[in-house]
């Protein structure tokens, strides 16, 4: 009989699952739904927005989750630095709908978010093609993931759709 290696559940697996659970809960508290994306590289979750009548709204919020044991935040700092792969950035910046990079801190059981396209649109001198394999982003420590943040991301989604609708109707 063929030997099959036993699998072990590591601390990393536990933290990764906790991070998904944490973000899902914040979205569910707003009445939104979350789908886990298993096979796509660079996107872990999609969040769907519903109105108060329970009707699905257009568009979605894309989420890349990074789970860590503890986020290092220097005392007095308003931001922390986090490195992302350039290959991920290429995918995120090609997305028309908002991509939220969410960093989960398992020790504190909280998470921080960054609206990726908006962040890089404001970095005027950033050149994706000249960037190294890793790019540092600075995530504001006050941008914690909670229902208020979810609703804010939903408004970004709505704004993107409005801009798109304007562009389409200018073509008509």
């Amino acid at each position, binding site marked *: 009989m063929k030997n099959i290696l036993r699998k072990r559940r590591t601390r990393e697996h536990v933290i990764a699952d906790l991070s998904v659970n944490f973000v899902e809960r914040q979205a569910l508290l707003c009445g939104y739904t979350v789908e886990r994306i298993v096979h*796509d590289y660079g996107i872990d979750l999609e969040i769907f927005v519903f109105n108060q009548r329970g009707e699905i709204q257009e568009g979605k919020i894309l989420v890349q989750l990074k789970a860590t044991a503890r986020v290092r935040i220097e005392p007095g700092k308003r931001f922390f630095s986090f490195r992302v792969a350039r290959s991920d950035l290429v995918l995120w910046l090609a997305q*028309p709908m908002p991509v939220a990079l969410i960093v989960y801190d398992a020790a504190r059981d909280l998470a921080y978010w960054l609206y990726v396209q908006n962040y890089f649109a404001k970095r005027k001198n950033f050149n994706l093609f000249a960037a190294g394999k890793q790019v540092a982003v600075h995530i504001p420590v006050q941008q914690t993931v909670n229902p208020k943040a979810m609703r804010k991301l939903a408004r970004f989604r709505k704004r993107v*759709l409005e801009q*798109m609708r304007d562009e389409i109707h200018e073509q008509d």
Partner: protein
Amino acid sequence: MSRTKAVSFGELARFLSELGFHEKRTTTAQVLEHPKEGMLVFRLYKSDERVDEGDLVSTRKFLDYRGVLAARDFDAFLHRATTPA
């Protein structure tokens, strides 16, 4: 949707046009707009490029919730589109 199916964007766009969506393009996206139900937004794909799993998930969900097409019928389309004749 139990597993990802390899459907090209061209196939998906044709299928959606049969459901009443009109294909449009902006500088950052391909949009399929339904006169009553609103927009499905995709990144810029080539016609023969495989659609990302996330876009299939969101299309299926939107069509189902808006009452345009039941989820099982979307799955049947994916099955037909990916099954050799």
